[in-house]
């Protein structure tokens, strides 16, 4: 008999090597969460600098109150899918609020951000179509593409000329969908949207922008990279998540297409899972309203991002993005060194993400920070000082 788990022995051995260098970096337990930027890990109060909690909204009293009220009035869960008993008035209210915020005619809410990409990609593209995806796309995009059954063509990261070349080679007669991300999660770099829009005008395709890390973060209105670039009219579909700037869990897809609502009956990840819980929907709704009403959160995030980015630059660290971004990834020499540095940062009271191949572009080993509007300047400075000692080797 072939043992089905035999194929994972390599993963087990790699995990064991990581454990021998310190704590389990990929299964870390937060004992307590004290605030959007502080937690207790291994009994030690720690600055949280790897949570994607960009707006620092997870402890907002209004959001918490909205969640508590919804749970008291509607219960702990919906116990059903959106196409059965799982659509409450609040799900529709959140979809309407998001559509207004995004200036789109239609919006569909999903139970997780992962499912939003699975649903949108598999609903939009089918076996006769072709999806062109950036090589550095998030795994949820790769998985959504696979679920669609479409022909999949990968283009070089952020390279519109490479996309142009691959579209020119196209053999299929079906529809074409190009997928890019507003901010790429590992390195924090933005898609060169204007370049992709030029290619779109040349070849003709439908364009989906996944604004998971940029929704609420970029643009004068917080609508993401397309808002920042002034190119929203050129984006056919927008995707996003509630698990970052919105501080809850869930995801969305939005667009203006007259048949957009039909996707509800064509997306298996939307149809065959329970809908988001009342508390999660209510906190998301409250948070989206705050993103619209409180642009100062974006201003604080931008200032904090610049402070960390330039602080790291001042230490001589090599960063993933050539521009200020709320994702500040530090390139490290190799896997054992990165693990040791990550452990030392944690012991020093700073939590960041560790990102290792194959989950990173170009086999990079990264110590990845994500900045929050809720970080104080003193916290940012402490993160910089700790990186200075642990990573840059400066006393």
């Amino acid at each position, binding site marked *: 008999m072939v043992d089905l788990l035999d194929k994972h022995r390599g993963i087990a051995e790699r995990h064991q090597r990581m454990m021998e260098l310190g704590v389990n970096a990929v299964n870390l337990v937060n004992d307590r969460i004290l605030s959007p930027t502080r937690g207790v890990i291994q009994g030690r109060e720690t600055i949280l600098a790897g949570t994607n909690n960009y707006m620092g909204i997870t402890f907002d009293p209004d959001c918490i109150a909205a969640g508590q009220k919804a749970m008291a009035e509607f219960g702990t869960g919906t116990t059903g899918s959106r196409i059965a008993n799982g659509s409450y008035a609040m799900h529709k209210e959140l979809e309407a609020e998001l559509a207004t915020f995004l200036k789109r005619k239609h919006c569909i809410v999903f139970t997780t951000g992962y499912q939003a990409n699975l649903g949108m990609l598999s609903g939009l593209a089918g076996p006769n179509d*072709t999806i062109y995806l950036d*090589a550095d796309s998030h795994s949820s995009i790769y998985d959504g*593409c696979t679920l669609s059954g479409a*022909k*999949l*063509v*990968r283009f*070089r990261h952020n390279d519109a000329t490479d996309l142009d*070349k*691959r579209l020119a*080679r*196209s*053999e299929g007669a079906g529809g074409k969908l190009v997928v890019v991300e507003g901010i790429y999660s590992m390195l924090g770099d933005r898609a060169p949207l204007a370049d992709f829009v030029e290619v779109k005008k040349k070849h003709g395709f439908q364009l989906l922008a996944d604004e998971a890390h940029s929704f609420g973060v970029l643009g004068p209105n917080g609508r993401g990279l397309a808002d920042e670039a002034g190119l929203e009219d050129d984006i056919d579909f927008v995707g996003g998540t509630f698990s970052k700037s919105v501080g809850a869990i869930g995801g969305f897809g939005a667009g203006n297409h007259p048949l957009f609502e039909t996707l509800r009956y064509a997306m298996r990840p939307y149809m065959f899972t329970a809908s988001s819980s009342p508390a999660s929907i209510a906190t998301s709704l409250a948070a989206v309203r705050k993103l619209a009403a409180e642009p100062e959160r974006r201003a604080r995030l931008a200032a904090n991002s610049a402070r960390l980015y330039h602080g790291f630059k001042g230490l001589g660290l090599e960063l993933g993005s050539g521009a200020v971004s709320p994702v500040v990834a530090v390139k490290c020499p190799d896997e054992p060194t990165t693990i040791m540095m990550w452990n030392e940062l944690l012991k020093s009271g700073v939590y960041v993400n560790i990102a290792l*191949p*194959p989950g990173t572009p170009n*086999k990079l080993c990264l110590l990845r920070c994500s900045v929050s509007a809720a970080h104080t300047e003193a916290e940012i400075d402490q993160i910089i000082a700790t990186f200075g000692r642990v990573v840059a080797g400066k006393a």
Partner: protein
Amino acid sequence: MNAPADIVAQIVTLLQPYNKGGVTLSADTDIPAELNIDSVDIMDFVMEVEDHYDIEIPLNVVSETRTIGDLALVVAKRRKA
């Protein structure tokens, strides 16, 4: 059908940078199993093959291709198309 020798030779050349273990490469080499390279490496390598021959090799086709000979046959078929 045998894989065209010239295409096999070219794929062997393109694959060498990914052959960290110095495996002897031939038409029968099982790329993921024998070279012990991950899925991202395989996708990057296939991009090199696409660009060299100016053809499209969708990821769906890559996932069904194991050996250098298999890939050479895909290239031969797509060059003719």
